[in-house]
């Protein structure tokens, strides 16, 4: 394979950003997400231990489930005991909690926020609505399965789950991180085209870059 051929393939791999106006396309990245390999066993184990003990969650309440985050944050259930802290922007956060139903208007913002988060990043899906639609299974405006649009690490069932259930979900997430099983970010990079296809199928006015890095 000569160099010209490789360049051609690289050009084909670039994202088209077709939703943007012509003059703005150059302003945004056209690179795809890439997978990140693990370090050697002991160093990665240490990193995972450290990651599991400082989970910074994105304070973006996407649905009614965000109500359960208030008692979790404040003194009654005090999640800072578990090393969890809320952060205001996606760039600083490592855990994204989808609070219940996600309407199409919200899933656009969810995708954008998720892609802007820096790796390693994890997703907790809260409530029955994210699993199979819950009580909104026949709604024209809310999605049924979240894992078709962004990768999900831990589901917490319930409508609504209590803050205790959320703490149990966080502990399950910590176990998974320590075991090195939270590979949602790599999954997103590997199945990027499939996720994009599903996202664009429901978000009809796609007026943002294909990958919001």
């Amino acid at each position: 394979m000569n160099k010209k051929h490789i360049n051609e393939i690289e050009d084909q791999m670039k994202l088209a950003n077709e939703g943007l106006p012509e003059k703005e396309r150059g302003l945004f990245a056209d690179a795809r997400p890439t997978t990140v390999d693990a370090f050697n066993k002991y160093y990665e184990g240490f990193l995972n231990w450290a990651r599991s003990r400082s989970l910074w969650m994105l304070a973006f309440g996407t649905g009614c489930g965000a109500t359960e985050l208030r008692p979790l944050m404040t003194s009654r259930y005090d999640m800072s005991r578990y090393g969890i802290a809320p952060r205001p922007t996606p760039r600083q956060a490592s855990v994204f909690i989808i609070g219940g139903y996600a309407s199409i208007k919200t899933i656009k913002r969810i995708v954008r926020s998720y892609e802007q988060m820096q790796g390693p990043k994890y997703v907790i899906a809260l409530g029955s609505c994210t699993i199979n639609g819950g009580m909104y299974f026949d709604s024209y405006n809310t999605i049924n399965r979240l894992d078709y649009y962004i990768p999900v690490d831990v589901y917490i069932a319930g409508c609504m789950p209590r803050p205790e259930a959320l703490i149990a979900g966080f502990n399950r997430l910590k176990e998974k991180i320590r075991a090195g099983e939270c590979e949602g970010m790599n999954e997103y990079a590997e199945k990027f085209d499939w996720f994009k296809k599903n996202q664009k199928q429901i978000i009809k006015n796609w007026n943002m870059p294909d990958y919001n890095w």
Partner: protein
Amino acid sequence: MEQLIKKLKGMVHLRAYRKQRDDLHFIMVDKPQLEMILAHLKNNEGFTHLAFLQAVDLIEDGKFQLTYMLYNYSTSVNLGVNVLIDRDDAEMNSIHKLWAHGWQYQRELHELYGIDFPGSPRVEESFVLEGWEEMPPMRRDFDTLEYSDKTFYQRPGRSTNDPAEYMKEKMYKNYPPSPGIRRDDE
């Protein structure tokens, strides 16, 4: 309130009047007279506040019923002004000159019911549905379950119970059947 109704009867053709509570009344007027009567109620009768504007889809009659809910701060009385408009070419006069915030309700009705308000500012902009291509979803002939099955991915294994049957089976097995409440009894 009775005096006001009497007065309104002298002014316009009142199709219906219903008193629901002491502080909640409904009148129904004809479509061409609506703007006039709303202006009169706002300027002369003290109904200065438009609480909401909503639509009901009366698909059996082929009509939309619009409700303009007004509120009088000095007497604490709610007055709903109903008007029937045609369902097929749904169009209504804009009230954004009477109440400035009316445009927002009209934008919502335009998107969710497909009712047109010519002259209303920003009425074509999307309200909650971004990039909607189907028929307006709040119309009753729009099948949400069919659309949901077609658009979103179902997770297999979901089962649904009829709540009444399920509770009878699980909780009230040992009790005699209750007569239940029929609509007519109310």
